[in-house]
């Protein structure tokens, strides 16, 4: 098992490198970029601007800049005698701005060590901004995952048991419609009906505004969670109910189910104890893709419901052209997805003893 997990983790490394290269290339192509943003002050003279650019390392070759972004520059320019000036340099020049004096030692740690730089817009380390937002996204994502699991599995099992009946046909139609309705429009219509017209549920946000800015524990604000969870879960409910139905039909055709019927067990026992439990196994493979779907859906759902999570901040950073934050959100969500896929494989191996990993 440990051998398998190690192998999967090693396999994830090239993917991770690919993601960082892709993000970095896109950031290079961005108009303006970090130097323009930091030297935008009109009082900056062209010479000063060049010096700032040199100190930021913009004139270094692009692979070196990528390495600096990835691994930081505290090992590229080191201060060994503690006089505030670097005296040993690796890959980059000691005196970048050509003023005859060496530069101060590098302080950036690089994204691999969690240093995504400072947010242009918020003037705070990106990591602080992101970490503050993660709980809200986790809360919404896990709630949607749980809802889609419960509804999707029950609907799938019931429509397999009553195959061809009205419930089965209804659930098939519903699944297609759930997939075809744009998430943002569903959200808008539900807010319009339940929030604006009927006034039963709040129109958005995570909780009623408080003086301290925090939120009460989750059971005290369930009504805020209902609509966004449902909207975020629709797509996954549709695909899981379809998948569960197919898997359940497959299990119901197996020999052990016929045996159970033959020895006279009640139908419900056979369906729900024998067939349903085994048909849950392939569902484990759907967990990874579901995480991607939910993270992607969170962008829109959080925007509509003013939910203070990662998706919401991704959209506002794009509008504010706050590149460090966008990069961080993309890389963190990609890492989350990769971990989700690895967990899915491990889970699959645990629930199905027929699968041998080594």
């Amino acid at each position, binding site marked *: 098992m440990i051998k398998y997990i190690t192998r999967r983790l090693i396999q994830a490394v090239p993917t991770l490198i*690919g993601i960082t290269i*892709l993000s970095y290339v*896109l950031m290079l192509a*961005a108009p303006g970029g970090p130097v323009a943003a930091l030297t935008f002050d009109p009082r900056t003279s062209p010479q000063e601007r060049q010096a700032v650019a040199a100190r930021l390392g913009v004139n270094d070759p692009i692979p070196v800049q990528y390495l600096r972004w990835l691994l930081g520059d505290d090992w590229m320019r080191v201060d060994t005698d503690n006089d505030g000036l670097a005296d040993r340099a690796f890959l980059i020049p000691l005196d970048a701005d050509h003023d005859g004096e060496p530069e101060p030692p590098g302080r950036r740690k690089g994204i691999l060590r969690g240093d995504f730089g400072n947010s242009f817009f918020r003037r705070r380390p990106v990591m602080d901004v992101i970490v503050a937002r993660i709980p809200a996204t986790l809360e919404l994502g896990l709630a949607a995952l749980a809802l889609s699991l419960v509804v999707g599995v029950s609907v799938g099992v019931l429509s397999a048991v009553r195959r061809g009946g009205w419930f089965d046909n209804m659930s098939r139609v519903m699944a297609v419609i759930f997939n075809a309705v744009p998430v943002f429009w569903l959200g*808008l219509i539900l807010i319009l009906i339940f929030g*604006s017209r009927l006034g039963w549920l709040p129109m958005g946000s995570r909780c009623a505004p408080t003086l301290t800015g925090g939120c009460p524990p989750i059971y005290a604000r369930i009504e805020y969670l209902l609509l966004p969870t449902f909207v975020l879960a629709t797509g996954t409910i549709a695909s899981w109910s379809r998948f569960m139905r197919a898997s359940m039909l497959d299990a119901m055709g197996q020999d052990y189910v016929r045996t159970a019927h033959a020895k006279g067990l009640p139908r419900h026992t056979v369906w729900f104890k024998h067939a349903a439990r085994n048909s849950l196994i392939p569902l484990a493979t759907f967990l990874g893709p579901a995480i991607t779907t939910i993270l992607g859906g969170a962008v829109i759902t959080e925007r509509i419901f003013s939910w203070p999570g990662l998706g919401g901040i991704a959209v506002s950073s794009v509008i504010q052209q706050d590149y460090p934050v966008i990069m961080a*959100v*993309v890389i963190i969500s*990609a890492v989350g*997805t990769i971990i989700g896929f690895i967990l899915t494989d491990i889970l699959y191996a645990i629930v199905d003893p027929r699968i041998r990993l080594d």
Partner: protein
Amino acid sequence: MIDRTQSLDTAEIKKLAKTQQDQRVGRSLTQLALARLKRDRLTLIAIGIIIILSLLSLGAGLITNVILHVDPNRTNPNNTFQPIGSENHILGTDELGRDQLARLLHAGRVSLGIGFSSAILSLAIGLTLGVITGYYGGTVDDIINWIITTLNSIPALFLLLIVAAVLSPGPTTLVIVLAFLSWTGTTRLVRGETFSIREREYILSARAIGASPWHIMFNHIVPNVLSVTIVTLAISIGNLILVESALSFLGLGVQPPTATWGNMLTRAQSFFNTGPHLVFFPGIMIVVTVLCLYVIGDGLRDAFDPTLKD
């Protein structure tokens, strides 16, 4: 010896064969599929709706000028938030006094156009890369697989957000971007098919008589994998229309005043009290279009599935 059965037409076979059983003429896979499709009423209705929507969108300029006498982009501050059925404006007007029906028709042109062209471009990219990786295997396969895994592990909408931030795309750029981010599924499908076709005898014989790899790939393999991918086209158009509308809704896709079904809803949240009809119609257009495309996709898959017999 000449194969006589090939040159006989139906009437001659009927004359020659005595029983009805013997009179049956062999039908090609496409003929069988079309026959099945003709009986599938739901798919036919969906095809009809899509054709009507496409014609309405294509004729949007003509319809709004000649029949409705309105301009989709002309604002009128004295005539905002008119309800459904008001004078000259069948579906009312929006927050700037623009006619909603005219905007819906023009938006359809953009949304359907982007969906169709990006799906076809993505199919072309996916098919080409899939055949090449499937045929050559080895290092090429490894590199393309690495790109696919990388692209698939970033939630698509996040990737689109960065690209939107960097390029601030118009309709044409958006088509290219959507196509370049959505080819991975087709490539995987085609790659698998190509792996199995590569080992068939007719490919071996083509290679034996000295056909170039290019010739084998595009004259022998592509026609055989085409049917598998064409069937997924309808569903992929539907998905791309959904993605485009989401992006435009967020204000990062096609920019106003050009209307798309997505960006007509961007400010919908502020119309809840003044004009709920502005929230309803653009969404319904998206739902109907995507639903029809999904139904067509399912219908085509069933019709072209050679394992299903009548």
